């Protein structure tokens, strides 16, 4: 089993790394999508089908479009898609940020007690998941719904024609 785990890890990390380094932003966005697919594969490997397909549906379906639209709409022409050449000053700040983040994650990892993996993954059916979601975590689900509607309304306000004088031609 660990062999597939290794492949998945290589895919996720490799594509994420490539996304960071590629000069062409569109390629970065698409490599990011590949890493999301890797994460979905990871969920499948772990036996959580529902989460894996939800991940594909949400991330690869919708979120990738948001990222690509953002990249397209903020860039005027392909020439400016280049990333500037590395300078030492920015490299230093990057290292500091990296160390800080890895420190926090490292602390969290070592602090938790990893009990040995259970022999068989718990038998989870969609019905069980649904009842669980609607039962114990109903509050979290509704909160998420409110958050998403707020985001939707924000998008509508942003996208509304900001030049009010361009009134709709009858």
């Amino acid at each position, binding site marked *: 089993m660990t062999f597939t785990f290794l492949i998945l890890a290589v895919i996720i990390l490799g594509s994420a790394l490539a996304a960071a380094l590629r000069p062409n932003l569109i390629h970065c966005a698409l490599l990011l999508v590949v890493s999301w697919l890797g994460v979905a594969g990871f969920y499948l490997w772990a036996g959580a089908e529902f989460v894996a397909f939800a991940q594909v*549906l949400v991330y690869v379906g919708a979120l990738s479009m948001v990222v690509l639209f953002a990249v397209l709409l903020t860039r005027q022409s392909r020439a400016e898609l280049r990333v500037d050449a590395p300078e030492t000053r920015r490299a230093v700040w990057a290292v500091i940020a990296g160390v800080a983040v890895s420190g926090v994650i490292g602390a969290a990892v070592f602090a938790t007690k990893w009990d040995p993996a259970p022999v068989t993954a718990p038998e989870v059916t969609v019905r069980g998941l649904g009842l669980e979601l609607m039962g114990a975590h109903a509050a979290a689900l509704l909160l998420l719904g409110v958050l998403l509607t707020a985001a939707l309304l924000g998008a509508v306000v942003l996208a509304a024609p900001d030049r009010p004088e361009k009134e709709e031609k009858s």
Partner: protein
Amino acid sequence: MIAAALTTDSFLERLPVLARDTVTGRLPESWRWMAGSLLEIIAILAGFGLLFAYLTLAERKILGRIQNRPGPNRTGWFGLLQPFADGVKALTKEDVVPAGADRVLHFLAPVVLVAVSLLGFAVLPFGRHLVAVELDTAVLYFFAAGTATELAVFMAGWASHNKYSLLAAMRALAQLISYELPLLLSVVPVVLVAGTLSTTKIVAAQGGWSLGFVPHWHVFTPWGAAGFVLFMVAALAESNRSPFDLPEAESELIAGHLTEYSGFKYALFFMAEYFGMCALSGMAVTLFLGGWGAPLAQLEWIPSYAWFTAKLLVLLLGFIWIRATLPRLRLDQLMKFAWKFLVPLTLLNLANAAGWSLTAGWTGPLQLVRWAVALALVAVPFVVLGRTLSAGSAPRTYRFA
């Protein structure tokens, strides 16, 4: 496969499973599962590949007959070799890649599109024992695979480095995203009533007949009929077919995001479109038309996969019929139709289905009340929303001087 059911069914019914078992029987135990699924993949590819080939021919023949002309009848007997002629033509045509194009993405777009549109077939139950992958979350898997097509369309549009392709890629994305919502929402009532995401269980839930001749298909319930129509309209938009074929609107943007493709890549795009159409129709048959169920008890002896194919072909002919008749919507009307008409209707349909499953216990006169309420919940919003949608446009009367 439920071994018990195997023995009771007719020989024809068990034929495909028997064929597979005899072939994999010779292999050692550990290889058997791999060989079996390989055979299923080959069967699906061959079956739907041929269906794609003859669907293109059927489309041109039916379009021709509707337009009072014969359609292709020169290649082979009655034009039956036309698809293979088209295939050879597509293979031999030069594959031009524009100078400014992003070569990697330009090549990847059709490959990803075809791969993704094929994924959907894994969970469709073609017959009583003919489902490639028995997934508990089959419906979610099907639509998760479907959403990746947008990515491929964007890659095609962007990589061609051509004004028309970029415009069309933007149009295609806007359309695909906004029609995914009604597509998914029209499926949720079925999951709600059937109580499961697995396609085989959904088909099983539609088994049996009441009053002797009315099958328990979802389409014969008010919310099911509305859901079926909404699903088909959204499927039309999702597979870029007739009234919604904006991305490759030939009268405006030449061939949309396909402008810079030629040769076999161009043919791949069409193959992907037809596979998408077949997959969505297959899902519609599974969810609403009782999958491989026979319409009448007496017709049970016909094998189940024959029923599935028959229903699939009826839906595909509907696609072609609509393509021959309807003009194209403009982009903003397309969006208005999706957000202001389809989404509210699907949400109401969801409420309707919830009400329907809650009142399942009612009997006698209450049954009539149940049907009346359900039908009202379908008809009234349709008429109200329809009137607001087509507010300004009505056939006019003219004065004469």
